[in-house]
C-alpha cells in the first residue's frame, strides 16, 4: 500500500493530542514517520485516490492543523510514496535542506491576495479619460452605418486600457504589500483575477498586513481585494534562491 505524504515537520513536532484523520473514506489516521531530526506526516493512501473535494479538504486540514503548532513544509496535494521506507530515505538524504527551510519558516505564515477590478469604475475612467474612446462610445451607442466596425475599435482600445490598468494595479499591490512581508511569490495565474500574489509574513505582523490590505482597498475604489490567510506556507517551501534556480 502506498503512503500519502502531507508535510515535513520536525521530529519533535507537537502533533496535537486529538487524532488527525487524512485522505480517504473514512479518513486514514495521520502518523509521523521519524528520521533523525525530521518527520513526515503521512497516512495510508486509499486506493484510486483522486483530487476530490473531500480529500483536498483533508489534505488542507491536516497541514493546517500541523501548521498551528509548529513550522511545516506542506507537500503538494496528492504526493504518494511507494511505502514508508521511501519517505524515511528521502528524509535521510535531504534532511539538511528541509531542516534549514523549516528553521527559516518558523513563526511565519502565508497570505494570499487576489485582486479583481470593479469593472464599471475602471471602464468609466477609461471612457471619460480618453476623448477618442468617448466619441467612439457615443457613436456606437447611437448605432449607424459603421457601428460594428467602430464597436470593435472601441472594444480594442478599451481592452488595451484595461490591460494597462491591470499591469499598473498589479505592481501597485505588490509594491504596497511587499514591505510588510519577508518574501513574495506570484501565485498561479487565474483567469478571473488581475493578480494573484502570496506573501510570507511574520505571524506578529499578520494584523498589520491585514490592515494594509484593507487600507489599499479603501484607497483604490476600483480594486476588489480578497485576502486569504494565515495559511501554511504552500508557496514558500523553497527558499528564494531555490525558487529562482
Amino acid at each position, binding site marked *: *500500500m502506498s503512503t500519502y505524504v502531507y508535510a515535513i515537520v520536525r521530529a519533535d513536532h507537537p502533533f496535537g493530542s486529538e487524532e488527525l484523520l487524512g485522505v480517504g473514506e473514512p479518513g486514514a489516521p495521520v502518523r509521523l514517520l521519524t528520521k533523525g531530526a525530521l518527520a513526515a506526516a503521512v497516512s495510508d493512501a486509499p486506493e484510486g485516490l483522486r483530487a476530490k473535494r473531500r480529500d483536498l479538504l483533508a489534505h488542507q486540514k491536516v497541514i493546517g492543523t500541523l501548521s498551528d503548532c509548529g513550522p511545516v513544509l506542506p507537500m503538494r496535494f496528492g504526493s504518494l510514496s511507494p511505502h514508508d521506507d521511501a519517505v524515511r530515505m528521502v528524509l535521510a538524504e535531504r534532511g539538511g535542506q528541509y531542516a534549514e527551510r523549516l528553521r527559516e519558516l518558523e513563526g511565519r505564515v502565508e497570505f494570499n491576495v487576489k485582486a479583481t477590478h470593479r469593472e464599471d469604475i475602471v471602464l468609466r475612467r477609461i471612457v471619460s479619460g480618453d476623448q477618442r474612446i468617448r466619441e467612439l462610445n457615443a457613436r456606437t451607442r447611437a448605432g449607424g452605418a459603421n457601428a460594428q466596425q467602430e464597436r470593435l475599435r472601441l472594444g480594442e482600445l478599451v481592452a488595451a486600457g484595461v*490591460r494597462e490598468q491591470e499591469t499598473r494595479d498589479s505592481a501597485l499591490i505588490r509594491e504596497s504589500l511587499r514591505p510588510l512581508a519577508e518574501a513574495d511569490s506570484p501565485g498561479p495565474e487565474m483567469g478571473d483575477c488581475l493578480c494573484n500574489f502570496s506573501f510570507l509574513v511574520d505571524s506578529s505582523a499578520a494584523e498589520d498586513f491585514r490592515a494594509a490590505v484593507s487600507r489599499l482597498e479603501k484607497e483604490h475604489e476600483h480594486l476588489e481585494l480578497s485576502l486569504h490567510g494565515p495559511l501554511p506556507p504552500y508557496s514558500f517551501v523553497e527558499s528564494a534562491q531555490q525558487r529562482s534556480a
Partner: protein
Amino acid sequence: MSIVPEQSYAADTRSGGGGSSSLYDVLELVLDRGLVIDVFVRVSLVGIEILKIDARIVVASVDTYLRFAEACNRLDLESGPNKSTGLPELVGDMTESGARGKTKGALSGAAQTVADSFREAREGSSDDKDKETSRPRARRTSTRRKEESE
C-alpha cells in the same frame, strides 16, 4: 469529479485565522504549490479543469472587444436626465447575457490552460503519464495490480 465552485466550504484550518477562506479560495495553492519530491508520484488531477466559472478573461479577441464595447455603451456616464429607461435597459440586459455566452469559449480556454499547467507539473513522473492516458477504471485496476506485485 469536478470541484463545484459556487459552494463555499469553510476549510479554514487555522484557529482564529482567515475566517472566510474556503478550500476553493486557495485551491490553486493546494494543487499547484507546496513541496514536490521527485521520488514520489502525484495522483492524477484529471477533472480539476473547472477552477473558476465566472472568469473574466482579457484576451485579444473579437468577442472580448465586443463585450467591452457593449459594457461601455451601457455605462451611465452622465447619470442625469439623459439616462435611458425602459426598453433600452431591457435590450442592455439581453446583450449582456449574449456577451456572457460569447465569453464562454475563452473561458474553457483558460480552464484548458490551467489543466495544461497541471499536466506540465506532472510530467516529471512517467508513472503519472501512464495514469493520465488510462481511463479511471483502468487506473484503479493498474494501481491494484501494482500493489499486488509488491
